[in-house]
């Protein structure tokens, strides 16, 4: 015994169910694993974004380096500096020059300090100037570093300035990693940025409310104002005098929102998938198994001898073509069956009928008599047998020929049909001998016999314009014995005896038993 479905219908159901189960399992697994997938993705994202921001910073640092070199290499600037330092003039000319030459640079801070430690430009940026002075003090003139300043971090690049090969000062330019920068980067990275110093948030893209909050993360998870963030530090290389740190955070709320969205998508996909599979299955059922089942029903009916009415379909697919072929085949079979029936009826009729007179023949008498007798008995009646023999028929044949004899036989058959009732049965027994079976009483049969005899006597045969008189002798008998096998033989014998009596009595009369009537 196999569990594999035997019918196509069941196989289709089986396959569809398998598909739905597979889909549900896969999507269920996806649904279940979506949380870990999202978290994993978030971890990857936060690492990627951290690297991306580090990349921005490196790129910014390189640009800043190029710009500071461009400034330090400018001959006019070094010449002005030389004059300002050596002639001891005010640095207004230097400000004018830096504005004219480098005013277009997108930097917020530029500080120039002489080799003696005097601030020649950018006095307002005292912290940066101090850092620069310290650098010069320790002989460092060229560097890139991060520097803390209140609530911001500055990316600083410095370069020495020479005039006629003599070091006359150092220039520093700074790019602020301030709130605007943080917002810009946060927008690009879809995360949030924090500047943290001494375990507290100095600046963040989450708004003023978060500033001053403690920044204590637990294995990369930070809770601020009941909201959780996945956080990673952003490496700030060459930090100088910088206790501030830059952190990137991805909101858990956002992660959950992404998770829910992902799950919604999974559910939607699964729902659509199941609907699609069911729809596909239904379509296959409708287009394939339904016509197949109908065909099976038709074949079953045909097997039981019934040729069903099959309407042709307009469908042009394989099943439609098969159905139409089948319908035409069944229609053709029906037509053939009708023809066969007709032939069979005809043959049956021919087997029971005398071809000349169109009356039943002797063989049919033996088939019919038992049924007729049973029917008569059910009606509490008997069967009258009238055995008729045309008188002097041989002399008619001899005198007028066999054709005239045949016409005489047909003439008498017509008289029999005219005289008898529709319920009577007429037979030609052979030669010029005929038999009439009539359900009823003997008295009625005798009346019928007389009617036949007198009708023939009074109706001559017209043959080739000549009137030929014909008479008939009739032997009558009667039976009402049911269940008797020999009833027909006996009643015919009795009728035959009565017919001899009528023949011996002069013909054209009716014999019954041993007497004439």
């Amino acid at each position, binding site marked *: 015994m196999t569990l594999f479905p035997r019918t196509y219908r069941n196989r289709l159901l089986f396959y569809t169910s398998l598909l739905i189960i597979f889909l549900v399992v896969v999507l269920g697994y996806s649904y279940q694993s979506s949380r870990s997938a999202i978290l994993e993705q978030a971890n990857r994202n936060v690492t990627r974004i951290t690297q991306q921001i580090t990349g921005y910073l490196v790129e910014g640092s390189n640009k800043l380096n190029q710009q500071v070199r461009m400034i330090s290499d400018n001959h006019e600037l070094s010449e002005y500096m030389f*004059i300002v330092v050596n*002639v001891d003039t*005010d640095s*207004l*000319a230097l400000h*004018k*020059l830096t504005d004219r030459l480098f005013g277009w640079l997108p930097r917020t801070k530029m500080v120039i300090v002489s080799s003696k430690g005097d601030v020649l430009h950018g006095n307002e940026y005292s912290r940066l100037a101090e850092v620069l002075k310290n650098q010069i003090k320790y002989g460092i003139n060229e560097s890139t570093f991060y520097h803390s300043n209140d609530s911001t971090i500055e990316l600083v690049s410095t370069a020495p300035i020479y005039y006629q090969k003599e070091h006359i000062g150092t220039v520093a330019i700074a790019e602020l990693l301030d709130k605007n920068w943080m917002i810009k980067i946060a927008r690009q990275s879809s995360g949030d940025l924090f500047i943290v110093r001494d375990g507290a948030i100095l600046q963040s893209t989450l708004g003023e409310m978060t500033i001053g909050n403690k920044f204590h993360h637990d294995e990369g998870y930070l809770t601020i104002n009941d909201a959780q963030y996945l956080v990673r530090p952003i490496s700030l290389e060459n930090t100088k005098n910088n206790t501030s740190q830059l952190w990137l955070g991805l909101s858990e709320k956002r992660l959950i929102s992404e998770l829910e969205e992902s799950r919604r998508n999974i559910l939607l996909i699964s729902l659509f998938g199941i609907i699609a599979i069911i729809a596909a299955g239904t379509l296959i059922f409708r287009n394939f198994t339904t016509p197949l089942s109908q065909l099976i029903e038709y074949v079953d009916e045909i097997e039981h001898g019934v040729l069903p009415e099959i309407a042709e379909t307009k469908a042009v697919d394989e099943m439609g073509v098969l159905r139409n072929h089948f319908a035409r085949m069944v229609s053709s079979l029906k037509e053939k069956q009708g023809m066969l029936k007709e032939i069979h009826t005809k043959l049956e009729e021919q087997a029971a009928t005398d071809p000349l007179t169109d009356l039943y023949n002797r063989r049919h008498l033996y088939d019919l008599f038992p049924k007729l007798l049973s029917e008569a008995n059910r009606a509490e009646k008997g069967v009258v047998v009238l055995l008729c023999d045309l008188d002097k028929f041989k002399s008619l044949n001899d005198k007028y020929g066999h054709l005239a004899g045949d016409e005489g036989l047909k003439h008498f058959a017509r008289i029999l049909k005219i005289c008898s009732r529709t319920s009577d049965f007429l037979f030609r027994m052979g030669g010029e001998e005929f038999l009439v079976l009539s359900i009823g009483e003997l008295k009625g049969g005798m009346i019928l016999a007389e009617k036949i005899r007198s009708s023939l006597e009074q109706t001559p045969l017209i043959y080739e314009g000549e009137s030929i008189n014909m008479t008939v002798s009739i032997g009558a008998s009667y039976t009402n014995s049911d269940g008797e096998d020999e009833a027909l033989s006996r009643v015919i014998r009795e009728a035959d005896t009565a017919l001899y009596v009528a023949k011996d009595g002069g013909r054209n009369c009716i014999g019954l038993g041993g007497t004439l009537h």
Partner: protein
Amino acid sequence: MNIKLLTRCTMPIKSITKLGYVLLLSLIYVPPGVTGEVAKDSDVIIGAGAHFSWIIFNTRKSELEKILGRPLRLSGKSSGLGVGCKAGIKVAKENRPGHETFGMVCCPLSKDTIASNGLTAHPLATEPVHIVVNKSNSVKNLSARNVRAIFRGEITNWSKVGGPDKPIVVVTRNHCKKRPGHWKTIVPSVDDFRKDRINVKSASAMVKRINDFTGAIGHIGATWEYDKNDQVKFIKVGGYAPMAKNLKNKKYPFYRQLSAVTHGGISSDMKKLLRAAHTGSGFNKLSAKYGLLPN
């Protein structure tokens, strides 16, 4: 036939014939005025060189073209754009039949330069060398001695010469070192200039430095054209303004000679041009404006 009708029919034919003659004649005969507009290169006299001499020609360009009956093509707007004295000598040497050129220089060429290049110098005018300071500077006059002392670095604060208590920033332009005149009328040698000074490569750079340093002092030819926003002014020297008459009577001590230079034989047109450049009413107007003394 109706005569009026005939006239109407024949008039257009006559007009077309006339038009044809006119077109044919216009192809054969080119009026003199037209040649000026589409002049051939051989007709053009080309001049290039120092800005300060270029001013003399360029300011009177249309007037000179009219005198010559030939077009002029002049280059020399800024001495900082590679069209200085050297370019003047180079262009002058390109002179040949069918390609007439001359150069413009801001100071007299040395005998060696003239001899080795086969040049002829044509002095045009003596130009005062202005001593310029920032407009914010209250000083309006300096003695020649003080000027020289300042450029030498002997005086380093304006307060020493009646100005504000402000360090003096000396700006120099040591051009044409091997030629006489010009800045050498202030100090004879580059080495004589103050060491901690600004030395610029062009006249425009000189103007920028004077603009930027309120305590600056520099020198520049009188024909320099300033921008309206420039914060530069010239001062009198020894009480004398840089004018032609003060040059002539040698009261104003700082000057240079503006010249044109040619190479080889020159045409009568070129002679006419060089003569017209520093004569006539047009030149007199220039002289009045810039203090030029004609040579």
